[in-house]
């Protein structure tokens, strides 16, 4: 496959479950610093796409290149270490730990067994935690047990945990689900700040929100890409309208 | 079960049997105790008072071995009750502390220490498997306790602190093999055992005897894990080898499976000669008489032995434990324990372990249900070897008996 300047280059990606092709010869390229939103009706394969990129699901065929490095054969934790972060659809945080601990645990040092044993929470870690907590608006909640955060705060915390690792590609699965209008606004701001020095892929249903944040939109349908481009262009695409209205 | 229910005849016999003891002493208990004050009969701090002597009983009442050990528990209790009914030992009643080894060797070790160190028992009747005996042996030696061990076993052991009341391997095996050669013209043997020390040692002795002394041939030797329940492949191998004699020492749950499957494969007493070291009346309960009919067992005791001692013993046993109770070889050997100890204590005039041990060699028990036994220098018993044929109703018919007492030889020369 070709060498590219893209952060992420997905080519001919296919995965099938018992003959059903959830992703079918898909190509996707994401630029550095780009915020890409993937939309599509339910069952289009959006989440599966993210699963494939982060290694949760193994591809049947095709390639996923991250900074020109093949990812399809790597185990999940190596993909993360290469610089890809993934947020799950439902907030996945350590409910029993404090916000501080949640962020601290995500700090990319002491990732091996013995590294973790010898890990010290030094000034660098604390500084990083403070920085991120500030960014996600939880600076005054550091000692709170994470399970007691509001739903929106949990989503932010999970994003914060990813940011602790400074990933070059961040993948967010429905980050504003269940958020209030005010929280959505804050999240949009947050995303804009985040993608200043990294690429972001977001799966989202809320078109208003998508319009607000997206640099470029990809529309998926039945495991394939239906359309790709700027938001207004995609919205006026008859194929897209057909898919959304037809279902 | 209490003493007044005992039939009078066995009591009289046992009184006679306590040979060395004058009748008068047994009858005037109090006078006896006074004549032998506790300070004199107990110089090592055992649990002996003016009226009582404490002994331990250590068997598995639970776990897989409970199947086998229950008979020993009952027989020892019966003997102790009978002794107490006669006035006890040196004027002192025996009190038993029962401990459950739970078929677990570390538990045996723990309980034996408890009996010796905490309870200071004068002696212990107990253990069944070699493994449990091996587990407690160092403790008996260290604490200088005394153990009466009832099971027929592999030999290769002799301890100051143990009296072995069952047969050691050569006593059980050699006569049986000679009988097989003479009476059944057996020349080829197929050896089968459960995979542990007793069958392996027994088979080693059998092989030596057959090959070196009988000019026979071993056509197969197989060991199966304890608890193994499928013998069909083995049975096919036997069918190929066509031995004159199947010589078996399979134990526990495997035993039942082995005989049921032999029968199902058409190998019955009518068609094949089989001699075993491990089927007593106890095992027969599980095996079922119809599966063992016509096969032979080599033991020193069978419930059907026809002598007065045994008749009284069987009657007392059934009276105590119900008409359906059966008595196997080990049960009888366990019954000997308390009587041998009584005789030794009375000969020594003391409960001290060292003195009892010193008095033990030469102790005779003409009242033994198996006939007559005597303790050898090496702490095993002189006893006769017997062969019996299994009957469809689960009993044994004795068909042969060694003319002389077999000398116990735990370290047989030429068989190592």
């Amino acid at each position, binding site marked *: 496959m070709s060498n590219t300047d893209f952060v992420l280059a997905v080519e001919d990606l296919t995965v099938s*479950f*018992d003959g059903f092709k959830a992703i079918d010869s898909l190509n996707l390229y994401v630029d550095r610093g780009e915020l890409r939103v993937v939309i599509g009706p339910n069952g289009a394969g959006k989440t599966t796409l993210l699963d494939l990129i982060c290694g*949760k*699901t193994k591809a049947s065929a095709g390639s996923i290149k991250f900074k020109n490095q093949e990812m399809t054969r790597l185990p999940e934790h190596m993909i993360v270490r290469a610089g890809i972060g993934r947020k799950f659809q439902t907030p996945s945080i350590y409910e029993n730990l404090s916000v501080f601990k949640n962020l601290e645990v995500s700090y990319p040092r002491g990732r091996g067994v013995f590294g973790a044993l010898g890990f010290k929470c030094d000034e660098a870690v604390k500084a990083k935690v403070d920085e991120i907590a500030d960014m996600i608006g939880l600076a005054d909640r550091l000692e709170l047990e994470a399970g007691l955060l509001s739903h929106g705060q949990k989503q932010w915390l999970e994003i914060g945990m990813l940011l602790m690792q400074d990933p070059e590609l961040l993948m967010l699965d429905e980050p504003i689900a269940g958020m209030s209008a005010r929280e959505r606004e804050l999240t949009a701001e947050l995303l804009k700040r985040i993608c200043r020095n990294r690429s972001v892929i977001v799966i989202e249903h809320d078109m208003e929100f998508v319009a607000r944040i997206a640099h470029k939109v990809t529309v998926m349908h039945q495991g394939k890409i239906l359309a790709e481009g700027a938001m207004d262009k995609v919205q006026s695409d008859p194929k897209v309208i057909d898919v959304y209205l037809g279902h | 079960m209490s003493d007044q229910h005992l039939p009078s005849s066995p009591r009289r016999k046992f009184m006679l049997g306590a040979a060395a003891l004058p009748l008068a002493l047994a009858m005037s208990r109090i006078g006896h105790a006074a004549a032998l004050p506790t300070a004199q009969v107990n110089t090592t701090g055992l649990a002996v008072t003016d009226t009582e002597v404490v002994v331990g009983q250590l068997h598995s*009442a*639970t*776990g*897989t071995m*409970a*199947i086998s050990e*229950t*008979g020993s528990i009952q027989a020892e209790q019966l003997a102790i009750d009978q002794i107490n009914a006669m006035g006890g030992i040196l004027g002192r009643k025996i009190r038993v502390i029962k401990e459950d080894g739970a078929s677990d060797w570390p538990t045996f070790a723990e309980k034996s220490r408890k009996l010796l160190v905490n309870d200071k028992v004068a002696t212990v009747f107990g253990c069944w498997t070699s493994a449990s005996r091996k587990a407690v042996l160092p403790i008996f030696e260290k604490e200088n306790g005394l153990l009466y061990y009832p099971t027929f076993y592999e030999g290769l052991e002799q301890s100051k602190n143990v009296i072995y009341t069952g047969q050691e391997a050569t006593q059980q095996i050699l006569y049986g093999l000679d009988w097989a050669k003479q009476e059944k013209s057996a020349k080829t043997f197929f050896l089968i055992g459960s*995979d542990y020390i007793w069958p392996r040692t027994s088979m080693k002795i059998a092989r030596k005897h057959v090959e070196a002394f009988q000019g026979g041939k071993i056509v197969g030797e*197989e*060991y*199966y*894990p304890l*608890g*193994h*329940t*499928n013998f*069909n*492949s*083995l*049975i*096919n*191998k036997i*069918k*190929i080898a066509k031995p004159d004699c199947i010589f078996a020492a399979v134990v526990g*749950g495997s*035993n*039942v*499976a082995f005989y*049921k*499957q032999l*029968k*199902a*494969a*058409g190998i*019955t007493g009518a068609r094949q000669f089989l001699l075993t070291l491990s089927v007593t009346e*106890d*095992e027969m*309960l*599980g*095996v*079922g008489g*119809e*599966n063992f009919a016509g096969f032979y067992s080599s033991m020193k005791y069978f419930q059907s032995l026809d002598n007065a001692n045994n008749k009284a013993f069987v009657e007392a046993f059934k009276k105590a434990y119900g008409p359906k109770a059966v008595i196997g070889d080990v049960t009888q050997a366990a019954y000997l324990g308390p009587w041998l100890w009584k005789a030794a204590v009375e000969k020594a005039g003391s409960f001290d372990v060292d003195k009892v041990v010193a008095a033990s060699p030469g102790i005779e028990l003409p009242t033994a249900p198996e006939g007559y036994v005597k303790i050898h220098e090496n702490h095993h018993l002189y006893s006769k070897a017997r062969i019996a044929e299994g009957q469809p109703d689960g009993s044994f018919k004795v068909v042969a008996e060694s003319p002389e007492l077999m000398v116990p030889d735990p370290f047989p020369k030429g068989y190592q």
Partner: protein
Amino acid sequence: MSFDEIYNITLMQGFAGLSLFAVLLLMGLGLAIIFGQMGVINMAHGEFMTIGAYTIFLLSSLTESHAPGLMQAYFPFAILCAFIVAFAFGWLAEWALIRHLYKRPLDTLLATWGLSLAMQQAFRTLIGPKEVSPTLPDWLMGSWEVTEGLDIPINGMFVLGLTVLVTGGVLLALYKSRWGLRVRATVANRAMANATGINTTRTDRVTFAIGCGIAGVAGAAFTTIGSTGPTSGSLYIVDAFLVVTFGGAASLWGTVVSAFGIAQTQSISEFFLSGSMAKVLTLLLIVTILMLRPQGLFASKVRR
């Protein structure tokens, strides 16, 4: 050795493998149903087998003393009773213990372990610590001598037939009956099954009880080939677990294949090696395969 003899031995050895297969499958089946369909490890499985065996013993004693004329006929009826009795105790155990622990599958293991201890002691107290031997009808004993030198064990054929019957019945019930549909629905998605009106509580109880009932049948059948005592169940439990584990737990088909594989390996290696070595070889083979394929032979394919 003549050709005839080799031919006979080969046939008998083939049957030995088959009958071991039947034994392993029958003992594993109940466990596989409970484990595969409910995720519960029933450590008391062996004791439910013992219940079945004792049922046979009690009925044979009753028949012998009250209706000796029926001795030839009681056995099939007794096997049915063994199923019913074990089923009833299984039902009770599910109600008293298991249903409280569905959210903690590992804890069912500890609870049923406690149950097995109590059951063993109950057998000892109620029936006696020694082994017993039920009197079997004459037609179940001995061998069928096809030709001179070729003996096929009747009890082996009986167990084989019973296994085929029970396995077929289970498969049929699981894939054709309402109960089977409910079980499969519950396994696939408990919440959804509940929502569609399936009484999952009842389904679980029946499933557990059926698993125990089959254990009872196995125990009953094994009175023809093995021992009956308070701890007889422990002779089988381990092999039963191996069969289920090796088969992949989730599928009954896996249990069948694994029982067949283990039986053939063991039976053939026993023929050519010594008994203990054969056992070790079989176990090592199982473990090696499990190391390479820890999910067992037939893992259910799930999207993770």
